[in-house]
Protein backbone atom coordinates (compact mmCIF):
# COMPACT_ATOMS: atom_id res chain seq x y z
CA UNK A 1 0.00 0.00 0.00
CA UNK A 2 2.10 2.79 -1.22
CA UNK A 3 5.13 1.15 0.26
CA UNK A 4 8.38 0.17 -1.39
CA UNK A 5 6.60 -2.43 -3.53
CA UNK A 6 4.29 0.48 -4.46
CA UNK A 7 0.85 -1.03 -4.54
CA UNK A 8 -2.19 1.20 -4.63
CA UNK A 9 -2.11 4.25 -2.38
CA UNK A 10 -4.79 4.68 0.26
CA UNK A 11 -7.02 7.72 -0.11
CA UNK A 12 -5.23 9.76 2.60
CA UNK A 13 -1.86 8.95 0.96
CA UNK A 14 -3.16 9.91 -2.48
CA UNK A 15 -4.62 13.20 -1.33
CA UNK A 16 -1.58 14.18 0.70
CA UNK A 17 0.60 13.70 -2.39
CA UNK A 18 -1.97 15.62 -4.43
CA UNK A 19 -1.70 18.54 -2.01
CA UNK A 20 1.90 19.14 -3.12
CA UNK A 21 1.19 19.06 -6.87
CA UNK A 22 0.76 22.80 -7.39
CA UNK A 23 2.79 24.26 -4.57
CA UNK A 24 4.98 23.69 -1.58
CA UNK A 25 2.93 23.20 1.52
CA UNK A 26 3.29 22.98 5.27
CA UNK A 27 1.76 20.20 7.34
CA UNK A 28 -1.02 22.28 8.87
CA UNK A 29 -2.28 23.40 5.44
CA UNK A 30 -2.53 19.88 4.08
CA UNK A 31 -5.40 18.80 6.34
CA UNK A 32 -7.37 21.87 5.21
CA UNK A 33 -6.57 21.11 1.56
CA UNK A 34 -7.78 17.52 1.81
CA UNK A 35 -10.88 18.54 3.72
CA UNK A 36 -11.72 21.13 1.07
CA UNK A 37 -10.81 18.99 -1.93
CA UNK A 38 -12.86 15.98 -0.79
CA UNK A 39 -15.62 18.10 0.76
CA UNK A 40 -15.03 16.36 4.06
CA UNK A 41 -15.28 12.84 2.60
CA UNK A 42 -11.68 11.92 3.42
CA UNK A 43 -10.79 12.48 7.06
CA UNK A 44 -7.13 13.13 7.75
CA UNK A 45 -6.40 12.68 11.43
CA UNK A 46 -3.31 14.48 12.78
CA UNK A 47 -1.59 11.17 13.56
CA UNK A 48 -2.19 9.97 10.02
CA UNK A 49 -0.89 13.21 8.52
CA UNK A 50 2.22 13.22 10.72
CA UNK A 51 2.98 9.60 9.86
CA UNK A 52 2.45 10.20 6.14
CA UNK A 53 4.77 13.19 6.09
CA UNK A 54 7.40 11.11 7.87
CA UNK A 55 6.80 8.10 5.57
CA UNK A 56 6.92 10.17 2.38
CA UNK A 57 10.16 11.78 3.52
CA UNK A 58 11.65 8.36 4.30
CA UNK A 59 10.67 7.22 0.80
CA UNK A 60 11.94 10.45 -0.81
CA UNK A 61 8.51 11.28 -2.21
CA UNK A 62 8.60 14.71 -0.56
CA UNK A 63 11.43 16.83 0.80
CA UNK A 64 11.60 19.60 3.36
CA UNK A 65 12.30 23.04 1.92
CA UNK A 66 11.87 25.45 4.80
CA UNK A 67 11.44 25.56 8.56
CA UNK A 68 9.81 28.64 9.98
CA UNK A 69 8.79 28.56 13.62
CA UNK A 70 6.46 25.63 14.10
CA UNK A 71 5.92 25.26 10.34
CA UNK A 72 7.86 22.98 8.06
CA UNK A 73 7.32 23.31 4.34
CA UNK A 74 7.66 20.39 1.94
CA UNK A 75 7.63 19.91 -1.80
CA UNK A 76 7.04 16.95 -4.05
CA UNK A 77 10.15 15.27 -5.46
CA UNK A 78 10.29 13.83 -8.97
CA UNK A 79 9.92 10.41 -7.38
CA UNK A 80 6.85 11.61 -5.51
CA UNK A 81 5.37 13.08 -8.69
CA UNK A 82 5.96 9.75 -10.47
CA UNK A 83 4.30 7.86 -7.63
CA UNK A 84 1.32 10.19 -7.80
CA UNK A 85 1.08 9.83 -11.59
CA UNK A 86 1.33 6.07 -11.29
CA UNK A 87 -1.60 6.09 -8.89
CA UNK A 88 -3.61 8.40 -11.16
CA UNK A 89 -2.98 6.01 -14.07
CA UNK A 90 -4.08 3.10 -11.96
CA UNK A 91 -7.26 4.88 -10.93
CA UNK A 92 -7.92 5.86 -14.57
CA UNK A 93 -7.49 2.25 -15.60
CA UNK A 94 -9.93 1.19 -12.88
CA UNK A 95 -12.42 3.76 -14.05
CA UNK A 96 -11.97 2.71 -17.68
CA UNK A 97 -12.56 -0.90 -16.76
CA UNK A 98 -15.66 0.03 -14.82
CA UNK A 99 -17.05 2.15 -17.68
CA UNK A 100 -16.38 -0.62 -20.21
CA UNK A 101 -18.16 -3.07 -18.02
CA UNK A 102 -21.14 -0.77 -17.67
CA UNK A 103 -21.38 -0.31 -21.48
CA UNK A 104 -21.54 -4.06 -22.15
Amino acid at each position, binding site marked *: *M*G*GKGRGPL*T*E*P*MFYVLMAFLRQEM*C*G*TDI*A*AFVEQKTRGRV*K*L*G*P*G*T*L*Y*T*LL*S*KFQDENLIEETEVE*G*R*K*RTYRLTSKGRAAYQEEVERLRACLRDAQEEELL
Partner: protein
Amino acid sequence: MIHTVIRITPFGSFDIPGLERWLGSMSAKGLRFSMTIGPLTCFERTDMDPLQIHLEPIQGSPDEDPELNAIYEESGWQYWGIFRNNFYVYASPDLEAQAHTDPATLDYALNKFFRHKLVEGVLLLVANLLLLGLYWQGSPWEIDLLWLRYYPVETLSNGKTIPFLLAALGFLLLDLSYLLGLFHLMHYRRAMQHGGPVGGQPGVGWLLAAGWLLLLPVLINTVQLFSRADYRPYDLEGSGFVTLTDMEGDDFRLSGTPMYNPDHISHGGTLLDPEYWSFRQYGSFGPDQSPYDVPHLELSIVRYPLEELAQLRAEEWSRQEINGSGEYEKLTAEYGLDDIYYAQREKRIHTNEITGEFHAFLPGGIFILRRENTVLFADYYGHQDLTGHLDKFAAMLENL
Protein backbone atom coordinates in the same frame (compact mmCIF):
# COMPACT_ATOMS: atom_id res chain seq x y z
CA MET B 1 0.80 26.40 43.20
CA ILE B 2 1.20 23.24 41.13
CA HIS B 3 0.32 20.12 43.05
CA THR B 4 2.23 17.12 41.65
CA VAL B 5 1.01 13.58 42.12
CA ILE B 6 3.29 10.61 41.37
CA ARG B 7 2.04 7.11 40.52
CA ILE B 8 3.69 3.87 39.47
CA THR B 9 2.65 3.23 35.87
CA PRO B 10 0.73 -0.03 35.96
CA PHE B 11 0.97 -0.69 32.20
CA GLY B 12 3.94 -1.74 30.10
CA SER B 13 5.99 0.82 28.19
CA PHE B 14 4.48 0.01 24.79
CA ASP B 15 0.96 -0.94 25.84
CA ILE B 16 -0.78 1.82 23.87
CA PRO B 17 -4.43 0.98 24.67
CA GLY B 18 -3.66 0.30 28.33
CA LEU B 19 -1.69 3.51 28.79
CA GLU B 20 -4.23 5.61 26.89
CA ARG B 21 -7.04 4.24 29.03
CA TRP B 22 -5.06 4.73 32.25
CA LEU B 23 -4.03 8.31 31.44
CA GLY B 24 -7.64 8.99 30.45
CA SER B 25 -8.94 7.63 33.75
CA MET B 26 -6.37 9.70 35.66
CA SER B 27 -7.47 12.83 33.78
CA ALA B 28 -11.04 12.03 34.78
CA LYS B 29 -9.82 12.23 38.40
CA GLY B 30 -8.31 15.65 37.69
CA LEU B 31 -4.76 14.41 37.20
CA ARG B 32 -3.14 15.81 34.08
CA PHE B 33 -0.15 13.90 32.71
CA SER B 34 3.04 15.86 33.13
CA MET B 35 6.11 13.62 32.73
CA THR B 36 7.62 10.22 33.43
CA ILE B 37 10.60 9.28 35.57
CA GLY B 38 11.59 5.65 34.99
CA PRO B 39 8.61 3.54 36.07
CA LEU B 40 6.84 6.55 37.62
CA THR B 41 4.37 8.92 36.03
CA CYS B 42 3.92 12.45 37.32
CA PHE B 43 0.60 14.27 37.16
CA GLU B 44 -0.53 17.77 37.94
CA ARG B 45 -3.75 18.13 39.84
CA THR B 46 -6.17 20.34 37.96
CA ASP B 47 -9.87 20.62 37.13
CA MET B 48 -10.70 19.03 33.79
CA ASP B 49 -13.66 17.76 31.83
CA PRO B 50 -13.43 14.15 30.60
CA LEU B 51 -10.79 13.88 27.90
CA GLN B 52 -9.67 11.41 25.33
CA ILE B 53 -5.94 10.63 25.47
CA HIS B 54 -3.94 9.64 22.43
CA LEU B 55 -0.37 8.35 22.40
CA GLU B 56 1.47 9.05 19.17
CA PRO B 57 4.47 6.74 18.73
CA ILE B 58 7.67 8.77 18.39
CA GLN B 59 9.26 7.91 15.08
CA GLY B 60 12.67 9.53 15.48
CA SER B 61 14.52 11.33 18.24
CA PRO B 62 12.43 11.88 21.38
CA ASP B 63 12.30 15.67 21.20
CA GLU B 64 9.27 17.86 21.22
CA ASP B 65 8.08 18.29 17.64
CA PRO B 66 6.58 21.78 17.13
CA GLU B 67 5.20 20.88 13.69
CA LEU B 68 3.46 17.81 15.02
CA ASN B 69 2.00 19.79 17.90
CA ALA B 70 0.75 22.39 15.45
CA ILE B 71 -0.88 19.67 13.31
CA TYR B 72 -2.57 18.19 16.38
CA GLU B 73 -3.66 21.57 17.72
CA GLU B 74 -5.28 22.34 14.35
CA SER B 75 -7.43 19.26 14.95
CA GLY B 76 -8.34 20.25 18.50
CA TRP B 77 -5.81 18.16 20.40
CA GLN B 78 -3.65 19.56 23.17
CA TYR B 79 -0.04 18.50 23.63
CA TRP B 80 0.73 17.27 27.15
CA GLY B 81 4.27 15.93 26.96
CA ILE B 82 6.44 12.94 26.21
CA PHE B 83 5.78 9.55 27.74
CA ARG B 84 9.03 7.64 28.42
CA ASN B 85 10.64 8.75 25.16
CA ASN B 86 8.15 6.46 23.42
CA PHE B 87 5.04 8.54 22.82
CA TYR B 88 3.82 12.09 22.44
CA VAL B 89 0.78 12.52 24.67
CA TYR B 90 -2.22 14.44 23.31
CA ALA B 91 -5.59 15.09 24.88
CA SER B 92 -8.85 16.05 23.24
CA PRO B 93 -12.16 17.11 24.77
CA ASP B 94 -13.85 15.40 21.80
CA LEU B 95 -14.24 11.84 23.03
CA GLU B 96 -14.93 10.63 19.47
CA ALA B 97 -11.94 12.38 17.88
CA GLN B 98 -9.69 10.14 15.81
CA ALA B 99 -5.97 10.81 15.56
CA HIS B 100 -5.47 8.06 13.01
CA THR B 101 -7.93 7.80 10.14
CA ASP B 102 -6.04 5.45 7.84
CA PRO B 103 -5.44 1.89 9.10
CA ALA B 104 -2.63 1.35 6.57
CA THR B 105 -0.80 4.45 7.77
CA LEU B 106 -1.31 3.49 11.41
CA ASP B 107 0.09 0.07 10.60
CA TYR B 108 3.14 1.72 9.03
CA ALA B 109 3.63 3.88 12.15
CA LEU B 110 3.30 0.91 14.50
CA ASN B 111 5.60 -1.24 12.41
CA LYS B 112 8.27 1.46 12.30
CA PHE B 113 7.91 2.03 16.04
CA PHE B 114 8.14 -1.71 16.69
CA ARG B 115 11.35 -2.02 14.65
CA HIS B 116 12.80 0.99 16.45
CA LYS B 117 12.02 -0.58 19.83
CA LEU B 118 13.49 -3.88 18.68
CA VAL B 119 16.81 -2.11 18.02
CA GLU B 120 16.57 -0.40 21.42
CA GLY B 121 15.98 -3.85 22.90
CA VAL B 122 19.37 -4.92 21.53
CA LEU B 123 20.91 -1.86 23.24
CA LEU B 124 19.20 -2.89 26.46
CA LEU B 125 20.75 -6.33 26.04
CA VAL B 126 24.18 -4.72 25.62
CA ALA B 127 23.56 -2.70 28.81
CA ASN B 128 22.70 -6.01 30.53
CA LEU B 129 26.01 -7.50 29.46
CA LEU B 130 28.08 -4.44 30.33
CA LEU B 131 26.72 -4.04 33.84
CA LEU B 132 26.73 -7.74 34.63
CA GLY B 133 30.24 -7.98 33.16
CA LEU B 134 31.42 -5.24 35.51
CA TYR B 135 30.35 -7.29 38.52
CA TRP B 136 31.03 -10.72 36.99
CA GLN B 137 33.56 -11.61 39.71
CA GLY B 138 30.64 -11.62 42.13
CA SER B 139 28.55 -14.03 40.06
CA PRO B 140 27.63 -17.40 41.56
CA TRP B 141 29.95 -18.99 38.98
CA GLU B 142 32.97 -17.06 40.21
CA ILE B 143 32.60 -17.11 43.99
CA ASP B 144 33.62 -20.05 46.16
CA LEU B 145 30.32 -21.62 47.15
CA LEU B 146 31.90 -23.62 49.97
CA TRP B 147 33.36 -20.40 51.35
CA LEU B 148 29.92 -18.81 50.98
CA ARG B 149 28.43 -21.57 53.10
CA TYR B 150 30.80 -21.08 56.03
CA TYR B 151 31.62 -17.38 55.63
CA PRO B 152 28.51 -15.82 54.06
CA VAL B 153 29.07 -12.26 55.33
CA GLU B 154 32.66 -12.16 54.13
CA THR B 155 31.74 -13.63 50.74
CA LEU B 156 28.71 -11.46 50.14
CA SER B 157 30.42 -8.26 51.22
CA ASN B 158 33.09 -8.55 48.53
CA GLY B 159 31.60 -5.55 46.70
CA LYS B 160 30.67 -7.61 43.64
CA THR B 161 28.20 -10.34 44.58
CA ILE B 162 25.36 -8.18 45.89
CA PRO B 163 25.57 -5.79 42.88
CA PHE B 164 25.70 -8.75 40.51
CA LEU B 165 22.65 -10.43 42.05
CA LEU B 166 20.66 -7.17 42.16
CA ALA B 167 21.64 -6.34 38.56
CA ALA B 168 20.81 -9.85 37.32
CA LEU B 169 17.38 -9.85 38.97
CA GLY B 170 16.70 -6.23 38.03
CA PHE B 171 17.56 -6.82 34.39
CA LEU B 172 15.51 -10.01 34.35
CA LEU B 173 12.43 -8.02 35.37
CA LEU B 174 13.28 -5.13 33.07
CA ASP B 175 13.88 -7.42 30.08
CA LEU B 176 10.70 -9.34 30.80
CA SER B 177 8.74 -6.10 30.95
CA TYR B 178 10.34 -4.98 27.68
CA LEU B 179 9.57 -8.27 25.93
CA LEU B 180 5.97 -8.20 27.15
CA GLY B 181 5.78 -4.62 25.90
CA LEU B 182 6.91 -5.68 22.43
CA PHE B 183 4.43 -8.53 22.52
CA HIS B 184 1.60 -6.14 23.43
CA LEU B 185 2.66 -3.80 20.64
CA MET B 186 2.60 -6.68 18.15
CA HIS B 187 -0.83 -7.73 19.42
CA TYR B 188 -2.13 -4.17 19.17
CA ARG B 189 -0.82 -3.84 15.61
CA ARG B 190 -2.55 -7.10 14.63
CA ALA B 191 -5.78 -5.96 16.27
CA MET B 192 -5.61 -2.68 14.36
CA GLN B 193 -5.07 -4.57 11.09
CA HIS B 194 -7.63 -7.32 11.49
CA GLY B 195 -9.85 -6.06 14.27
CA GLY B 196 -10.14 -7.72 17.65
CA PRO B 197 -10.05 -6.77 21.30
CA VAL B 198 -7.44 -4.29 22.47
CA GLY B 199 -7.57 -4.26 26.22
CA GLY B 200 -4.17 -3.49 27.69
CA GLN B 201 -2.42 -5.58 30.31
CA PRO B 202 -2.11 -4.02 33.75
CA GLY B 203 0.69 -5.34 35.97
CA VAL B 204 3.53 -5.22 33.45
CA GLY B 205 4.43 -1.76 34.75
CA TRP B 206 5.03 -3.25 38.19
CA LEU B 207 7.69 -5.55 36.71
CA LEU B 208 9.43 -2.48 35.36
CA ALA B 209 9.13 -0.69 38.72
CA ALA B 210 10.52 -3.67 40.62
CA GLY B 211 13.34 -3.99 38.08
CA TRP B 212 14.24 -0.32 38.48
CA LEU B 213 14.09 -0.61 42.26
CA LEU B 214 16.67 -3.40 42.13
CA LEU B 215 18.84 -1.71 39.53
CA LEU B 216 18.92 1.74 41.08
CA PRO B 217 21.37 0.90 43.90
CA VAL B 218 23.59 -0.92 41.38
CA LEU B 219 23.62 2.14 39.12
CA ILE B 220 24.48 4.43 42.05
CA ASN B 221 27.18 1.97 43.09
CA THR B 222 28.59 1.94 39.54
CA VAL B 223 28.67 5.73 39.36
CA GLN B 224 30.52 5.77 42.70
CA LEU B 225 33.06 3.30 41.30
CA PHE B 226 33.64 5.22 38.09
CA SER B 227 33.84 8.59 39.82
CA ARG B 228 36.40 7.08 42.23
CA ALA B 229 34.14 7.95 45.14
CA ASP B 230 34.78 4.40 46.37
CA TYR B 231 38.28 5.31 47.64
CA ARG B 232 38.62 8.19 50.09
CA PRO B 233 41.96 7.91 51.93
CA TYR B 234 42.89 10.36 54.67
CA ASP B 235 46.00 11.33 56.66
CA LEU B 236 47.30 9.05 59.35
CA GLU B 237 48.17 12.08 61.45
CA GLY B 238 45.15 12.98 63.53
CA SER B 239 43.28 9.86 62.42
CA GLY B 240 43.26 8.33 65.89
CA PHE B 241 44.51 5.01 64.50
CA VAL B 242 46.71 2.85 66.72
CA THR B 243 50.27 2.80 65.36
CA LEU B 244 53.35 0.73 66.02
CA THR B 245 54.81 3.70 67.86
CA ASP B 246 51.88 3.50 70.31
CA MET B 247 52.72 -0.11 70.93
CA GLU B 248 56.50 -0.28 70.66
CA GLY B 249 57.37 3.11 72.11
CA ASP B 250 58.55 6.43 70.73
CA ASP B 251 62.09 5.11 70.11
CA PHE B 252 60.89 2.42 67.73
CA ARG B 253 62.21 2.95 64.20
CA LEU B 254 59.56 2.68 61.56
CA SER B 255 60.26 1.66 57.97
CA GLY B 256 61.13 4.55 55.68
CA THR B 257 59.37 2.94 52.73
CA PRO B 258 55.86 4.30 52.07
CA MET B 259 54.73 0.80 51.13
CA TYR B 260 55.50 -0.44 54.65
CA ASN B 261 54.80 2.79 56.46
CA PRO B 262 52.12 4.74 54.60
CA ASP B 263 51.22 8.22 55.79
CA HIS B 264 47.54 7.68 55.11
CA ILE B 265 44.63 5.45 56.05
CA SER B 266 43.08 3.57 53.14
CA HIS B 267 39.38 4.20 53.37
CA GLY B 268 36.44 3.76 51.04
CA GLY B 269 33.29 1.87 50.23
CA THR B 270 30.22 2.37 48.11
CA LEU B 271 26.50 1.96 48.52
CA LEU B 272 26.79 -1.82 48.05
CA ASP B 273 30.31 -2.29 49.36
CA PRO B 274 30.58 -1.76 53.15
CA GLU B 275 32.71 1.15 54.33
CA TYR B 276 36.22 -0.04 55.12
CA TRP B 277 39.47 1.22 56.57
CA SER B 278 42.84 -0.46 56.29
CA PHE B 279 46.27 0.43 57.53
CA ARG B 280 49.58 -1.30 58.02
CA GLN B 281 52.86 -0.29 59.52
CA TYR B 282 56.21 -2.10 59.61
CA GLY B 283 59.38 -1.51 61.54
CA SER B 284 62.59 -0.64 59.73
CA PHE B 285 64.37 -3.69 58.30
CA GLY B 286 67.81 -4.13 56.79
CA PRO B 287 68.79 -5.44 53.34
CA ASP B 288 69.30 -8.98 54.64
CA GLN B 289 65.92 -8.97 56.41
CA SER B 290 62.36 -9.42 55.25
CA PRO B 291 59.49 -7.21 56.49
CA TYR B 292 58.27 -10.22 58.46
CA ASP B 293 61.42 -10.15 60.60
CA VAL B 294 60.46 -6.87 62.24
CA PRO B 295 57.39 -5.88 64.33
CA HIS B 296 54.43 -4.91 62.23
CA LEU B 297 50.76 -4.18 62.61
CA GLU B 298 47.99 -4.66 60.06
CA LEU B 299 44.53 -3.24 60.65
CA SER B 300 41.39 -3.93 58.73
CA ILE B 301 38.03 -2.45 59.68
CA VAL B 302 34.62 -2.89 58.05
CA ARG B 303 31.41 -1.10 58.90
CA TYR B 304 28.31 -3.11 57.96
CA PRO B 305 24.85 -1.71 57.34
CA LEU B 306 23.43 -3.93 60.10
CA GLU B 307 24.78 -4.77 63.54
CA GLU B 308 23.77 -8.42 63.05
CA LEU B 309 26.05 -8.64 60.01
CA ALA B 310 28.96 -7.20 61.97
CA GLN B 311 28.32 -9.71 64.74
CA LEU B 312 28.32 -12.56 62.22
CA ARG B 313 31.46 -11.25 60.54
CA ALA B 314 33.33 -11.06 63.85
CA GLU B 315 32.31 -14.62 64.54
CA GLU B 316 33.38 -15.69 61.01
CA TRP B 317 36.76 -14.02 61.46
CA SER B 318 37.25 -15.77 64.79
CA ARG B 319 37.04 -19.11 62.98
CA GLN B 320 39.87 -18.29 60.60
CA GLU B 321 43.37 -19.24 61.68
CA ILE B 322 45.87 -16.83 60.19
CA ASN B 323 49.59 -17.60 60.16
CA GLY B 324 49.49 -19.87 63.17
CA SER B 325 47.24 -17.64 65.21
CA GLY B 326 45.81 -20.62 67.07
CA GLU B 327 42.42 -20.72 68.76
CA TYR B 328 40.55 -17.51 69.51
CA GLU B 329 39.41 -16.79 72.99
CA LYS B 330 36.29 -14.70 73.54
CA LEU B 331 37.09 -12.12 76.19
CA THR B 332 34.66 -10.25 78.38
CA ALA B 333 33.37 -7.17 76.62
CA GLU B 334 34.75 -3.92 77.99
CA TYR B 335 35.69 -0.37 76.91
CA GLY B 336 32.35 -0.07 75.11
CA LEU B 337 33.12 -2.99 72.80
CA ASP B 338 30.42 -5.57 72.07
CA ASP B 339 32.66 -8.50 71.07
CA ILE B 340 36.31 -9.19 71.79
CA TYR B 341 38.10 -12.17 70.29
CA TYR B 342 41.77 -12.65 70.94
CA ALA B 343 44.29 -15.18 69.65
CA GLN B 344 47.82 -15.19 70.91
CA ARG B 345 50.49 -16.17 68.42
CA GLU B 346 53.57 -17.94 69.70
CA LYS B 347 56.99 -17.53 68.13
CA ARG B 348 57.11 -19.96 65.23
CA ILE B 349 59.94 -21.57 63.29
CA HIS B 350 59.21 -22.62 59.74
CA THR B 351 61.57 -25.06 58.05
CA ASN B 352 61.68 -25.35 54.29
CA GLU B 353 61.28 -29.04 53.52
CA ILE B 354 63.37 -28.84 50.34
CA THR B 355 66.23 -26.53 51.26
CA GLY B 356 66.21 -27.22 54.97
CA GLU B 357 66.43 -23.49 55.67
CA PHE B 358 64.43 -22.26 58.62
CA HIS B 359 62.71 -18.99 59.28
CA ALA B 360 61.65 -17.62 62.63
CA PHE B 361 58.37 -15.72 62.79
CA LEU B 362 57.75 -13.15 65.48
CA PRO B 363 55.17 -13.85 68.17
CA GLY B 364 52.18 -11.56 68.51
CA GLY B 365 48.44 -11.78 68.43
CA ILE B 366 45.19 -11.03 66.68
CA PHE B 367 42.31 -8.94 67.93
CA ILE B 368 38.84 -9.14 66.48
CA LEU B 369 36.82 -6.36 68.03
CA ARG B 370 33.28 -5.31 67.36
CA ARG B 371 31.58 -2.12 68.34
CA GLU B 372 27.98 -1.93 67.16
CA ASN B 373 28.10 -2.45 63.37
CA THR B 374 31.88 -2.04 63.00
CA VAL B 375 34.38 -4.88 63.13
CA LEU B 376 38.14 -4.49 63.53
CA PHE B 377 40.72 -7.12 62.65
CA ALA B 378 44.16 -6.29 64.08
CA ASP B 379 47.08 -8.58 63.30
CA TYR B 380 50.22 -7.79 65.28
CA TYR B 381 53.67 -9.34 65.06
CA GLY B 382 56.04 -8.29 67.81
CA HIS B 383 56.94 -8.80 71.41
CA GLN B 384 54.33 -6.58 73.01
CA ASP B 385 51.23 -7.95 74.69
CA LEU B 386 48.34 -6.93 72.43
CA THR B 387 45.78 -7.20 75.23
CA GLY B 388 47.58 -4.40 77.05
CA HIS B 389 46.53 -2.05 74.24
CA LEU B 390 42.86 -3.01 74.09
CA ASP B 391 41.79 0.41 75.38
CA LYS B 392 43.58 2.12 72.46
CA PHE B 393 41.87 -0.04 69.89
CA ALA B 394 38.51 0.47 71.59
CA ALA B 395 39.01 4.25 71.57
CA MET B 396 39.98 4.09 67.91
CA LEU B 397 36.77 2.24 67.02
CA GLU B 398 34.70 4.64 69.08
CA ASN B 399 36.13 7.63 67.20
CA LEU B 400 35.68 6.22 63.72
